[in-house]
């Protein structure tokens, strides 16, 4: 009896896990008015044609629908994400992963200049996803853009690992919640991370060649 129950539970777990894969998300676009749906599909086609990931665009669309946003606003925000993805790829290079592009697009939307993204990529070749996610969070929490960008860049160039950035983020977040000024919290927490020699990778000052994309 118990064995049968365990087998049943064991078998049910993977099935539940695949739910997200079985979602027919494009059907949900039908909830948009025809004009907005057409505009979204046009943006998706453009992204596909230029090799950009479409998931962030579709996700933004569904997010807007779920939050009952105005259709025109949804189209506007999806277009913003598309533009940010394009700009992110120009800054990070054609080999940037989907996660890197999404994180970079988020950083751009938070106010990080594209030139800063290019500096992240040129510093070394490992994934910029985590430092850019942390950078966007810090700016969103009130750390001045330049302070956040320069501090994260220093740590990045100093060889900080993903765990270092996440640890830094946790500390700063705690300090801000406790009442510390955001910039002060970041500066003090950043001192806890000794700079290390950057790992071998792309040499600094050798940024990726910008790709040529159709407008």
């Amino acid at each position, binding site marked *: 009896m118990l064995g049968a129950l365990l087998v049943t539970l064991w078998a049910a777990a993977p099935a539940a896990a695949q739910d997200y894969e079985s979602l027919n998300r494009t059907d949900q676009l039908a909830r948009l008015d025809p004009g907005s749906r057409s505009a979204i599909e046009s943006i998706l086609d453009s992204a596909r044609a230029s090799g950009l990931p479409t998931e962030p665009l579709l996700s933004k669309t569904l997010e807007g629908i779920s939050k009952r946003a105005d259709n025109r606003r949804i189209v506007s925000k999806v277009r913003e994400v598309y533009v940010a993805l394009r700009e992110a790829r120009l800054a990070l290079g054609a080999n940037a992963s989907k996660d890197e592009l999404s994180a970079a697009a988020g950083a751009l939307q938070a106010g990080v200049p594209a030139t800063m993204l290019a500096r992240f990529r040129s510093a070394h070749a490992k994934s910029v996803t985590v430092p850019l996610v942390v950078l966007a*969070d810090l700016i969103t929490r009130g750390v001045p853009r330049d302070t956040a960008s320069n501090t994260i860049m220093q740590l990045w160039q100093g060889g900080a690992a993903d765990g270092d950035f996440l640890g830094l983020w946790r500390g700063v977040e705690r300090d801000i919640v406790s009442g510390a000024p955001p910039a002060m919290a970041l500066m003090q927490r950043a001192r806890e991370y000794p700079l290390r020699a950057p790992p071998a990778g792309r040499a600094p000052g050798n940024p990726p060649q910008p790709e040529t994309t159709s407008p």
Partner: protein
Amino acid sequence: MSEQELHPNVEWIAREARRPVVLGAGARERLLDAIREEPLPERPSRVEWFTGRRRVALSPLVGAALAAGLVGIGVLAGRFSNDDGRDRDDRTAVGQPETVATAPSGQLPSNTDTVRVLKFVLVAPQAASVSVVGDFNGWDAKATMMTKTRTGGTWSVTMRIPAGRHLYAFVVDGKQWMADPSAPLAPDDGFGTPNSVALVGGSSS
């Protein structure tokens, strides 16, 4: 040995022993009074009955069977416990409200599995329902309902999610959107409610 051979003294003792005892008048009453004066022994309470020491006799066979049963229970409990632990380890995230997610372990696992287990946790004692929404479930507020622990107001749900960067939020009571307090914030969503970022390890990034 016959009676005729007994020593005279022994015969005298035997005769005395066989002679009926004659009690004085009132002896029976005095005896009963003395018994009545003795305090009654206290009856043990139910708690004492359960907690009091007593001897239990078991045959070696029954004892061995009980021991084997206990070992079996321990093994099963260990398996369930390990499963839970695996979930926590796999949650790579940065993100979960109280949690563990708290506990975001912060470290992106190095293995290359493309789907990982992520546990979302939110402390919301006053909430009647909580769901998690994100790019992994089409932002459907009814797709992934969280369950409340028996004690406290902690809501949680465990999901298998593709590795990578994900945006998500919680929906409390079907209408109030909120970011995960224990995860990095995403930049303005453009729709007036904040989102969080989950970094699920093993991505291609």
